[in-house]
């Protein structure tokens, strides 16, 4: 207790010391349009997390933070652009047959690997086969596990799927690497940046790929500097040691008046995820009561300074036509309704449960704290159980040993299934144990049809079921801020967890 008081006093003293020195400054105008692009130059970008040990682009276990950087080094047959469209990359064009189980890609000419060798059909066949596990090993990329065969026919790549998949293109982003190459021995892709060097937990250096087939990168060199401590990262931005950092939250940008601040969204579904298999959350009325009790407007006002996009289901606005804004306010906040539902479910006096949150993820911890307060008036006592990330991952996500957790789910590709597949009752990723035959049927219907309108309709049905059944208490797609030195421009937000360095330039 004594220790706590001391650290509290220190924290308060620090806050005063800081605010006395800086005062509160108004935000600089967001979304500034900077000047013209100059070619060349180098910048240092701050990262919160070191990249994974393995920079093998086919390792789907890689973290989002790693994938986001590898995006600059590796490319697939197609790649996503900042609008969420899939544009041809190593393939110059493609065709799909009527039953959506055979995709034919035409290879772009003159695409070179970073070691100078030209990309051939064999490289593509080998890379896709490796990812799909057709070379005898494990399936490395689960999203392409349904590839039955990959062949080179007259220089074209013919991919045959074991079942129809109209969304396959979203996963044809699987990186193409040289045939027979071991990605652990060296990092060779075709992207706008080449990998140069890496010092564990310190930095990663990328260099412009001058032979890039498309529009080459503007900057000559990018150093990614790993700074795990969020305060230190902000200090380094203020001091000018860093030129740029992404995925900052509202609390971090306040003092960065030497930088341009851009606001986007983090493309995650942040929610109070409920374990649908444990009492009392196995009762839909209890889950709905929670939805009524938790006023998400209040949550984002208190936990994220009002920044963020409210969500009502497992879908965020960046996915365009799949997003259903009408679900956002499906549950009108009401303490009375919540109490009524709880009484019906047999909990007139509420109950107790714990919310497991990874302690290192401040934005989730903050949201959990507000939720605890919002549940108090309806008689529910929630307590927060802060755990380490590794513990969260093994206990909550894999072991499904939790009652509730606040976390954000992101999408690997730009396909609706990336966000919705996990709620199929048999999905290995269904960590909340959601079990709805109606949902399973709708999802199956969505993935088996080849008609786009019909598919969208079924996916929307899935989203509606998640909302109606109150699978989780959906909160928001958190705001994400980018800080950039005033002489930098060209940043683009993606609907995916991606940091595109090739577009960034120094202004003249």
């Amino acid at each position, binding site marked *: 207790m004594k220790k706590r008081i001391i650290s509290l006093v220190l924290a308060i003293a620090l806050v005063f010391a800081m605010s006395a020195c800086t005062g509160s400054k108004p935000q600089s105008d967001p979304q500034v349009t900077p000047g013209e692009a100059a070619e060349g130059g180098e910048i240092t970008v701050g990262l919160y997390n070191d990249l994974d040990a393995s920079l093998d682009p086919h390792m789907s276990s890689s973290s989002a933070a790693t994938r986001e950087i590898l995006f600059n080094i590796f490319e697939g047959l197609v790649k996503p652009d900042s609008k969420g469209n899939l544009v041809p990359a190593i393939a110059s064009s493609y065709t799909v047959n009527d039953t959506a189980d055979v995709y034919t890609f035409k290879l772009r000419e003159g695409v070179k690997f970073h070691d100078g060798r030209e990309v051939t059909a064999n490289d593509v066949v080998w890379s896709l086969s490796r990812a799909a596990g057709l070379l005898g090993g494990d399936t490395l990329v689960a999203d392409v596990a349904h590839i039955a065969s990959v062949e080179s026919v007259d220089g074209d790549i013919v991919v045959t799927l074991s079942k129809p998949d109209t969304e396959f293109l979203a996963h044809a982003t699987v990186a193409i690497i040289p045939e027979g190459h071991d990605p652990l021995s060296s990092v060779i892709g075709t992207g706008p940046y080449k990998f140069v060097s890496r010092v564990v937990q310190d930095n990663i250096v990328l260099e412009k790929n001058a032979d890039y087939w498309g529009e080459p990168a503007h900057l000559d060199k990018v150093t990614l500097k790993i*700074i795990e401590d969020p*305060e*230190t990262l902000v200090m380094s931005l203020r001091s000018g040691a860093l030129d740029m950092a992404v995925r900052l939250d509202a609390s971090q940008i306040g003092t960065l008046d030497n930088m341009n601040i851009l606001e986007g969204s983090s493309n995650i579904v942040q929610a109070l995820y409920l374990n649908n298999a444990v009492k009392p959350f196995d009762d839909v009325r209890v889950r709905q009561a929670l939805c009524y009790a938790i006023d998400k407007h209040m949550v984002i006002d208190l936990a994220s300074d009002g920044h963020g996009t409210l969500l009502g289901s497992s879908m965020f606005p960046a996915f365009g036509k799949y997003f259903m804004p009408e679900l956002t306010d499906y549950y009108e906040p009401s303490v009375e309704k919540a109490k009524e539902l709880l009484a019906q479910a047999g909990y007139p006096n509420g109950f107790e449960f714990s919310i497991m949150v990874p302690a290192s993820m401040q934005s989730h911890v903050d949201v959990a704290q507000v939720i605890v307060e919002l549940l108090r008036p309806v008689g529910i006592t929630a307590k927060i159980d802060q755990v380490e990330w590794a513990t969260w991952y093994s206990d909550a996500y894999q072991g499904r040993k939790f009652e509730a957790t606040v976390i954000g789910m992101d999408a690997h590709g730009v396909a609706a299934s990336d966000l919705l597949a996990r709620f199929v009752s048999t999905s290995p990723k269904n960590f909340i144990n959601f079990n709805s035959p109606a949902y399973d049927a709708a999802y199956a219907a969505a993935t088996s049809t080849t008609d786009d309108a019909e598919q969208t309709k079924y996916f929307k049905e899935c989203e509606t079921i998640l909302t109606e059944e109150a699978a989780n208490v959906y909160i928001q797609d958190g705001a994400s801020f980018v800080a950039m030195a005033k002489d930098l421009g060209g940043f683009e937000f993606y609907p995916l967890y991606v940091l595109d360095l090739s577009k960034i330039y120094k202004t003249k």
Partner: protein
Amino acid sequence: MSYVLKKTGVLLISLVLISLLTFLAFQVIPGDPTTKILGTDYTPERAEALREQLGLKGNIFVRYFQWLRGLLHGEPGISYSYFMPVKDVMAGKMQVTAILSILSWLLVMLFSIPLGIILARFQGSHLERTGIVVNQVFMAVPPFFLGILFTYLFGLLLRWFTPGSYVSYADDPAKALAYMLFPALAISIPKAAKTAKLLRSSILSEMNKDYVRTAYSRGNSRWAVLRDHVLRNAMLPVITYLAMSLADTVAGSIIVEQVFALPGLGRLLLSSIGNRDFPVAQCIVVIIAFIVVFMNYLADIVTQYIDPRVRLS
């Protein structure tokens, strides 16, 4: 001689116990390294195969001895999260922490010894009273807080250094040292304050002894008595303390490295525990524990070398 032998024996036993406890601690800590490595590809079968591959199966004591043997041969295993030998992961980090600790330790001596002597010399004066209050304040401030303060004050306001711009010692030694001066200050100031306080009270208690009165009666000045007679005796507990504080500065750098974005052992230790990268974490804990125990051992030996009375007691 038997004293040294006895202390060496205690040292060896401590080291074995430390290595055993460290090893056991990482066996019982919750969270499974295989889930972390496999990520979304986790299946019980793959985890089982991986456990086999990582040598996580089998009798715990057999594994302990295997690990210990590797450690003694300078092969502390393979990092789970970087798939490379632990010593390669640690190579550059060790240097950063070593330089930072030694620099901090030198600063501790540089500040504390003159300060302790001055406080004792001017006992009863206003200078001493003010000095003690200031000293007390510095003793109470944790290094991480000083670190944040320094980054703000010297880094952002005065611009004496650029926070977050550390360049490796191998690339530019002068720049690296200049940068490390600030974290070293943050680590050393509280430690120096404690050492100065200890030295002051040690001097003052010596001052009341008979030999001091004799020295005065021979007509020596206060400075001369201090320098020639008192200091030699008063330094004894301080030397022990200083030796132990080298170990403390190593531990102190763990937190301060985070504040100053220094790529040292401290950051590696924290992240390796978070990632369940046990081979790396174990190795760092053993190294730090070794430094602590070894510095205590050295302190004992040095003290008895300077002061033969210790051997008798």
